[in-house]
């Protein structure tokens, strides 16, 4: 039973990795509590992989109500967040730990 459970987990990871192999990758950097770039343009109806690199020494939380995503990224670490497929439009995101400065926008275009 234990072996079956482990096998199921590994299989799902492998399947997921294979399924996500051809997904477009976008990168955003957190530096001095700001997002670089602050505007990311992605294609509509396409699942993308967003890599968030926190170059600050302090943690930040990538969050977006519109995208329904929320992830803590420790200082000096990076995180991968899958987004979409999304309809055309603007989807803001922010750093919850520094909401006044860390703000960005994902613009979905046809």
């Amino acid at each position, binding site marked *: 039973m234990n072996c079956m459970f482990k096998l199921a987990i590994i299989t*799902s*990871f492998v399947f*997921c*990795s294979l*399924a*996500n192999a051809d*997904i477009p990758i976008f990168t955003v950097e957190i530096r001095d509590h700001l997002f670089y770039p602050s505007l990311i343009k992605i294609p509509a109806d396409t*699942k993308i*992989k967003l890599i968030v690199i926190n170059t600050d020494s*302090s*943690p*930040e*939380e990538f969050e977006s*109500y*519109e995208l*329904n*995503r*929320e*992830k*803590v*990224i*420790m*200082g000096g*670490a990076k*995180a*991968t*967040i*899958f*987004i*979409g*497929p*999304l*309809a055309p439009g603007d989807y803001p995101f922010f750093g*919850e*730990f*520094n*909401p*006044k400065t860390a703000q960005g926008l994902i613009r979905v275009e046809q």
Partner: protein
Amino acid sequence: MVDAVLLVLREVLEAALIVSLLLALTYKLQLHYRWSIIALVCGFLGSIFLAYYTSAIADAADGRGQELLNVVLYLVVVVCVLWVGFLITSVFVSCIKNKKNNERLIATEKNNPYLLIMLCSVIVSFSLAREGSEIWIYFSSFTIQSQSFYSALIGAAIGIGIGMSLGGITYYLLIFMKEKYFTPGFLVVVTLLSGGLSLQIAKQFMQIGLLDSDGPIWDSSFLVNEKSWVGELLYALFGYDAQPNSVQAYFYLAATLPMLINFLWHWRSLRETSNAKKN
């Protein structure tokens, strides 16, 4: 400071509402509140543990560790919440059939009150550990004894105070309710709570790419905006999402359907008993 107030309040609110709900339940059943102290201590220690090992957890499972751990934590709480719902439903129905007061029944029935206390303890400690860890991570970003640290500390104290006050108001509103309104109301809240938590599980799977998110089924932001105070309150208690997608809807159904089937089954049982008595 305002950022700290809002951040801490968001994290504390969910835990505070769950604690007040379960404390009100145990008050109504005349069970001692000692379990809550142990659960809160365990939750507090758990939050420190999770915050301390955040980096290791995040790096685990090819960068998916944080989401997978969240899934486990949410799943355990959902199962326990549903179990509490099932226990209370059978107690409530038994009361109606035997026309006894709710308060004494669970101590005299075969249902073990310690099971209920254990479930409540797990719900509270897991919820607090999950929500509290983010507060510790937030504070780790400040240099101790800096101006911003003290400002954030005061903000956090205010946020905790507001959260606990709302929890206290909820508790007293619930305990002053008559039993015939409290129990059905409690069961409705429990059903919605389990649904809300299941939305979080769906969110974790979508975030790591195990499930695909599609467009929203509806947009109720014109009614209640997620960023508003009401929206935050509804999110804390029911996992309110103004733009849910179909994946979230399936998870919501999967979590709430057991309770709905349970209600229907007991309602049918009550009707049969009532018809039998008339005949």
